[in-house]
């Protein structure tokens, strides 16, 4: 028995130790979590914005913070794998050297590239012009693709394959952005699904359990009042509209559908008009900025910035026209908002694509034998990747300037006018409201430019990080001093998911130009790490051919049809399985909901019986 007791004591000591160790581990984890929440950027600022303006606007600022972090990580990636080895080897630190192999079998004309980094005495405004348009002294820095005219780097005895690293770093940052955005949007998606599911007793729930008794701040209370009022009003209005739609006659339906079709045609015509004007302007700007010889500073700068100006004008006017037109289409209010936003998103993102397309049409303008020896228009664009990078850089700088200018010269004077001048027109115009969707589209537009441009200009994410940092403070100050709280509070969970979904569309759209540049347009022979290859993608097959035989066979096997088709079929099967599972779950939920309704009817029946029996 003593042995048994000793055994028990031993066991319980072991259990005790386990319990205490798990408790202390949990405590340590909690403390670490607490400390790490202090490290989160701008935690206090965003918290105070949430208290004063509601969760909709707070979600905009957390989205901005997410983009700052994403760009910073992208910058670290590109910098450490591409720029750092180049700089180390160019300056010979760590006993490193650079190998520049001149391309074989290429005509000499293709390899002439003399960027005119400013030499000699130059005026100060030349520096300003160069800073704004990425020419001159900026062209020869590590900002643009042309700097990396290196074929491999030798650090002591190790060989660092810079072309391969450049390509893989590009793929890495695109993949990283994709995975991070998907991870964040999945959380929002789950919340969205749960929130929309219960429309069962929405009115009673909103009225009896609507007020959160924990609210202690009068500002938060005001916000809550306003959001409750708005929610009740929108729900009632949607119900009224739904009833109206059900009672539409056939004649009315025909009229409305024909009206919708004609408005959609008008919208399409507007979009095509925008695209055509961007194309013409880009062609004009490229032709003229190449022959002007720095005579007139302002005119030159204007011509350089013409595409950016036209795109910004289109982005400003388009949404106004769309909001005006959609009033005639008679949709439900929620659907109206979504449709207008989709049209604006399409406008903004397609503008960038059209700009790039027109640039490419210039670069591969092969009439009159201009590109015979090299495959691209080598006279005008000896280093075309740098030119594309330059356009993206200009777009980014111009975007920042416009945001600054609009805040300084439109919002602040408006606030001054409204507070000091009491004439009726001004008072009716009122203070600006913080338009969340427009602001979000603005920053997504900037982010798409950054993603496209990073392949051509590796330091662009750093510029984007600084730009979003500045935008955060500008918007915060503008919000506090010039905006009034919106009359239509928006739900935060659906907004988060919406922002990330549009960002994902932007990312997928960014894949296309980068993919086309890498895989199908011949890389410049005069500059850049891909001089010895036909296209930038060729680095990968060439590197694979250097692998051992076994690995080569394995990789070729994966890329062949014999492997791809079965994998595709397996993926399809898995997808069908999940779709079937989701359908089954939905049916179960519907059945349970019907059972709830039957249950309440049973209770009603019983109560009636009881009251009758009394």
């Amino acid at each position: 028995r003593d042995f048994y007791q000793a055994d028990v004591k031993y066991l319980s000591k072991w259990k005790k130790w386990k319990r205490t160790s798990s408790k202390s581990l949990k405590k340590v984890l909690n403390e670490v979590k607490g400390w790490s929440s202090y490290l989160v950027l701008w935690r206090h600022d965003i918290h105070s914005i949430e208290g004063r303006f509601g969760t909709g606007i707070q979600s905009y600022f957390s989205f901005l913070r997410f983009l700052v972090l994403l760009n910073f990580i992208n910058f670290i990636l590109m910098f450490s794998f591409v720029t750092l080895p180049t700089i180390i080897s160019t300056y010979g630190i760590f006993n490193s050297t650079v190998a520049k192999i001149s391309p074989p079998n290429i005509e000499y004309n293709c390899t002439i590239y003399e960027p005119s980094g400013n030499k000699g005495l130059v005026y100060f405004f030349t520096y300003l012009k160069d800073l704004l348009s990425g020419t001159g002294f900026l062209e020869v820095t590590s900002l643009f693709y042309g700097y990396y005219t290196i074929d491999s780097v030798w650090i002591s005895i190790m060989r660092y394959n810079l072309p391969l690293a450049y390509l893989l770093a590009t793929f890495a940052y695109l993949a990283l952005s994709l995975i991070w955005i998907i991870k964040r949007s999945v959380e929002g998606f789950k919340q969205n699904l749960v929130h929309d599911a219960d429309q069962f007793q929405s009115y009673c729930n909103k009225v009896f359990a609507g007020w959160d008794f924990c609210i202690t701040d009068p500002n938060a209370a005001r916000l809550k009042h306003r959001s409750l009022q708005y929610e009740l009003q929108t729900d009632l209005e949607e119900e009224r509209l739904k009833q109206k739609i059900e009672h539409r006659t056939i004649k009315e339906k025909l009229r409305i559908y024909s009206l919708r079709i004609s408005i959609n045609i008008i919208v399409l015509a507007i979009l095509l008009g925008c695209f055509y004007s961007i194309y013409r302007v880009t062609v004009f700007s490229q032709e003229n900025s190449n022959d002007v010889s720095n005579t007139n500073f302002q005119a030159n700068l204007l011509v350089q910035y013409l595409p950016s100006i036209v795109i910004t004008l289109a982005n400003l006017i388009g949404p106004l026209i769309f909001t005006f037109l959609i009033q005639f289409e008679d949709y439900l209010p929620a659907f109206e908002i979504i449709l207008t936003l989709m049209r604006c998103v399409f406008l903004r993102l397609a503008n960038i694509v059209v700009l790039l397309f027109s640039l490419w049409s210039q670069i591969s303008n092969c009439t009159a034998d201009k590109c015979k020896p090299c495959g691209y228009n080598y006279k005008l664009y000896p280093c075309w990747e740098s030119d594309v990078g330059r356009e993206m850089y200009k777009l980014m700088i111009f975007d920042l300037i416009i945001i600054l200018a609009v805040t300084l010269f439109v919002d602040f004077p408006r606030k001054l006018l409204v507070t000091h001048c009491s004439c009726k027109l001004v008072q009716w115009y009122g203070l600006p409201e913080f338009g969340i969707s427009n602001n979000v589209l603005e920053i997504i537009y900037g982010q798409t430019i950054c993603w496209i441009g990073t392949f051509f200009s590796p330091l662009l994410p750093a510029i984007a990080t600084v730009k979003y940092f500045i935008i955060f403070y500008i918007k915060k100050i503008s919000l506090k001093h010039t905006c009034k709280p919106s009359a239509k509070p928006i739900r935060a969970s659906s907004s988060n998911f919406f922002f990330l979904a549009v960002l994902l569309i932007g990312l997928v759209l960014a894949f296309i130009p980068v993919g086309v540049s890498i895989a199908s347009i011949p890389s410049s022979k005069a500059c850049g790490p891909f001089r010895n290859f036909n296209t930038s993608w060729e680095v990968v097959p060439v590197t694979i051919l250097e692998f051992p035989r076994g690995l080569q066979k394995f990789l070729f096997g994966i890329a062949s049809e014999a492997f791809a088709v079965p994998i595709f079929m397996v993926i399809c099967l898995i997808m069908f399985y999940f779709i079937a599972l989701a359908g089954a779950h939905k049916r179960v939920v519907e059945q349970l909901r019907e059972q709830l309704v039957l249950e309440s009817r049973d209770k009603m029946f019983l109560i009636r019986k009881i009251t009758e029996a009394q």
Partner: protein
Amino acid sequence: AYKRFSELLPKEERGNACSVRVPKRQILTLPELRANPFQERICRVFSTSEAGDDSMSFEDFLDMLSVFSDSATSEVKSHYAFRIFDFDEDGTLDRKDLEQLVNCLTGQGEESRLSSTEMEQLIQNILEESDIDKDGTINPSEFQHVVSRSPDFASSFKIVL
């Protein structure tokens, strides 16, 4: 809780806080009640003063805190919620009570009230969802039934000191 209650009293009476009644306007300075649109109703419901001036003693204060705490059961909460929402204290929630309730929720001031057609539509919907015996009013058991199936009730009907 005792500390918070005694802070509400003027200095001289802090000694025997247990037996003194605090007038209504002092109670309403509590931060938890300050922003609450139902503050008047809360004071009326929990006050046991015979003079009808809605002053609260320490026991009333404790009552109130216990009902609003996490550990109160859902029946207790729905019982008191019913009494708070019953503005004319007739034992049922009729149309006028519901109208006043909605006006409290959307805020004071003329521009924050719903229009009369919207109010009618809203009250119609509420009664459709909760009035089981179709008599045009909500009695306590109907209210309890509706609230028991509302997901947000337990988390919103809560005050934490």
